[in-house]
């Protein structure tokens, strides 16, 4: 009996405290913001709208290796490799169907050149679903995005315009195949 009464008193007390807390909120600053007049702070590693970045030299970072496409769990990335006259690979087209994209970020993790990156921008609603299909021109930015220094072709051994054999990081000059000297 005593137990029962104690419990009932506790419940009444708890509700009074709750009422008091709610009452005090009248005098506190609001948690909600006046979006879109007031923009929230988005963390840099937020997984939002996908962009394609450029390397520090200003060239397209994407080398059309297709790893993002194969990593994509909803198969919403398609691209086609092509190359310039000096052998540098780049995508002829690069298309993402954002109406399928689940913003999982697997593409960014798979990318060996830091080309594809997810950004804090989440404002991607459209009235027409067709407008959610984005091409390379829509995604390619002029900067390096989150990763400032990485330049894939400076490390890879493939020669491109402006970088010959043996000119990448940690490389010896090309061998002389007519010599047997050590």
């Amino acid at each position, binding site marked *: 009996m005593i137990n029962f009464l104690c419990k009932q008193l506790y419940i009444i007390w708890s509700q009074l405290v709750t009422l008091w807390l709610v009452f005090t909120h009248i005098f506190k600053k609001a948690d909600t913001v006046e979006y879109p007049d007031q923009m929230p702070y988005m963390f840099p590693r937020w997984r939002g709208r996908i962009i394609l970045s450029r390397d520090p030299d200003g060239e397209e970072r994407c*080398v*059309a*290796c*297709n*790893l993002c*496409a*194969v990593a*994509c769990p*909803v*198969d*919403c*990335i*398609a*691209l*086609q*490799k*092509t*190359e310039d006259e000096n052998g540098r*690979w780049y995508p002829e087209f690069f*298309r*993402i*169907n954002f*109406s*399928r994209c689940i913003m999982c970020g697997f593409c960014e993790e798979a990318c*060996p*050149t830091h080309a594809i990156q997810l950004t804090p921008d989440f404002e991607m609603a459209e009235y027409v*679903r*067709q407008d*959610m*299909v984005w*091409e390379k021109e829509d995604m390619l930015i002029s900067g390096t995005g989150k990763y400032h220094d990485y330049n*894939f072709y400076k*490390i*890879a*051994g*493939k*020669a491109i315009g402006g970088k010959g*054999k*043996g000119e*990448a990081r*940690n*490389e*010896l*000059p*090309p*061998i*002389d*195949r*007519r*010599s*047997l000297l*050590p």
Partner: protein
Amino acid sequence: MAKITVDGKVFEVDPNNNLLQELLSHKQDLPYFCWHPSMGSVGSCRQCAVIEYANDDDQRGRQVMACMTSPREGARYSMDKAHQFRAQAIESIMTSHPHDCPVCEEGGECHLQDMTVMSGHTYRRYDGKKSTHNNQNLGPFIGHEMNRCITCYRCVRYYKDYAGGTDFSVQASHNHTYFGRFQDGSLESEFSGNLAEVCPTGVFTDKVFSKVYSRKWDLQSSPSVCAACGVGCNINPGERYGTLRRVVNRFNDEVNGYFLCDKGRFGTGYVNSAQRISVNMSRSAHDARPSEITPVDAKAKLLAMKGNAIGIGSPRASLEANYALRALVGKDNFYAGVSDVEFGLLNQVIDIYQNRPVHIASIKDIEKCDAILVLGEDVTNTAARIALALRQSVKNIGKEMAARIKLPMWQDAAIRTLAMDKKSPLYILSSHATRLDDIARQVHIGSAADSARIAFAVAHVLDSSAPAVTGLSDAEMALVNSIATDLKAAKHPLVVSGTSSLEPALLNAAANIATALGNGDQRGNLALCVPEANSLGLMLLMDGSQNSLGKAMQSGARQAIVLENDLYRRAPSATVDSFLSGLQQLAVLDHLQHRTGEAANLVLASGTFAETTGTFVNYEGRAQHFYATFKPVAAIQSSAKWLCDSEFGNEPRIHILTGGAAAILPNGYKLQKLTPGADWTFAGQRAPRQHHRYSGRTVMRAHLNVHEPKQEQDEDGLMNYSMEGVPATKDATIFNSPWAPGWNSNQSLFKFQKSAGGELKQGSHGERLFDENTGAKAWYAAVVQQAAISGFAQFPIYHLFGSEELTAQSEAIQAKATGAYVALNPADVARLGLGASDGVQVQHNGAVPYLARASITPGTVGISVGLHGLNYQNMTTAGVSLNKAANWQNPKDWRASNIIVSDAGSSSAYGRGTQG
């Protein structure tokens, strides 16, 4: 069989094989690089290390290379204990690997990637400088990226030792080792494309594919058969975004094994050509403007011709398409769309196969033969894969020597050293020097008729009951005797001939020799090359009917349906002109625009081998089924489907047509064994054409419409145009391309084979339609027709790149092809007064450039077949007169540097001068 224990597991192995191959046969994951099932072991890569224990008490064991070890009965081995060594070995192999997998065409199907992961090397510790190499331009087919090399030596062992190439080698030493040519330039071997598959990493890649690159997992593929010649190699075409991207080898132990020729691999560009007929056109009269019509109207117009039209079949269309045409027009109105000469020759081939006691040699058989006579067939250019097989058969003498001293057959380097330059005998009787001359014991240059007389004489020497030949010179008799002696001494003698020399007596002579070589149950091997993918299939469908193309043109028909055929390649231009102008209604079904199609009232877009399902019958009468790789645009349909009327239910499934053809063909019941059955499913599902990692499914068509269409349906059954179904696992009956867990490259093939390098566990290697003839010996009379010749005696010259109609429309092939020309002896060049840049006016034909070749007999002229600028069918007389062309300028497509000749002491500036 020997019992061995590996890591506690007991295996039954063949002690004559090496341990690596036997472990792979038991589907064990043991890494390797340099070993190849077709090329044996050299033990250079140190990847297949295992520990061998001396006895049960031995706890330490010693490290051996599995590929260089014969398994001992009762021995104990460990793969696990050598794991660390393998990781270290691959770590040192990788010290200079260039960190460019994302931009490497091999990525995703790279044996090096697979083996690196498998051996456990994951983190790069070496931070020294990497050695680098300059690349070479190896021509239009093969890309070169030397930095990726791991020096397994497979390329040079394949190119030089296996394929007999001379312009490729290993250079420099230690970590500077370099694999390439002496200087930049196009690879000369006709089998260079295999380098891309033989190389375990991305040093040699498919340059044609690289231009339209897609990862292996993104290619929709199906089992298919090459349509480029009569050999019928098995291929795996790959499609992406609606275009055919590449062709790779599909293993068939009895036909092509692991290798293809460059025409088959790089010659499919025509499927995506701008010349493709992709809409159906109709016009009321010859001179009216054609207008586009819907597929339904097109089919209605075509079927309206039933009852009035004759049908001209095609040796490059499938059995089903030819059968559908035959069913539509009736047997009596069905004509074979081959030249009249070829018609006779092909009938003769069938007669020989059916009625002579000979063994029809498959490529697997050819590789076993140890004495060969090549009769008037330039196999490198007409049936290239057979030439590669012949290059293996002359090595059998080395294997014989090795067997005598009990050297195991996988000891590749040892056997080569033992044999040195000894070769099994190979004789060539030809009208000009051929690319196989370097392995021949003796080459005899003479006309096809001369060759036939010599061959008849050989048959007579081998078996005196065969008809004799008189009037041979002493030198010719000496040749006859040495050929006969070598063939008689051989365990597996072989005669190779074919239709390309257009000489009926040659085929008879070849049959006589093969018959004469028979001895009791043992029959002589005979391989008769035929020109096109389904030449024999078409002729078998004729079912004894003598309806040749010439008869069709004289039939007075007012309506004709021409199936996948350009008649101007089959008959003299004037004859075709008068035939076509006499027609009121001409319907043509084909893939590419050509002259016959231009004259048609109704042009129907028909699917190529890559877009249709059907059956081809190859040179040995082997029927092989190919599955469509992808679905073309709606206007294009398979010829078989176009030609079906309501009798078959208008849109029948393909197996109904195959069944119809089977009722006509000899042993036709075997056709149903080619597939697991039209309603086959595995676990309730069909086999997928797409890899389980196929990407971009929800976006590849999204730029057209974001709402995804239903997956394409294949009404013929068996395979889906999607990822649905049981993927390529070890038990799949039909698989899109080989893949196994941990094995992404084509090396995964051993998981699908009964034993590593052996027969496939599932699938069909084709069905041979001709029964082995066990009848008594019978002979063809030694009659050689020889008409009086005025002017030059002509003979045809074929080119692997350019002579075949469809592949010649592929960009990659055009880069290696040339325009039409005539080949003359330098003496005749002088006699005609030709200067270095003069042209030759050919009687009944156009003016063309010439090529001086020392091997050509004076008074004869080699005339290129199928190349742009000449119609060989116009050469109707027994001789041809040649004159210097007036106001001559070499045409743009004349590229003499693409003609590789092997004439000793040729005055030609071309050929092997490029080696530097």
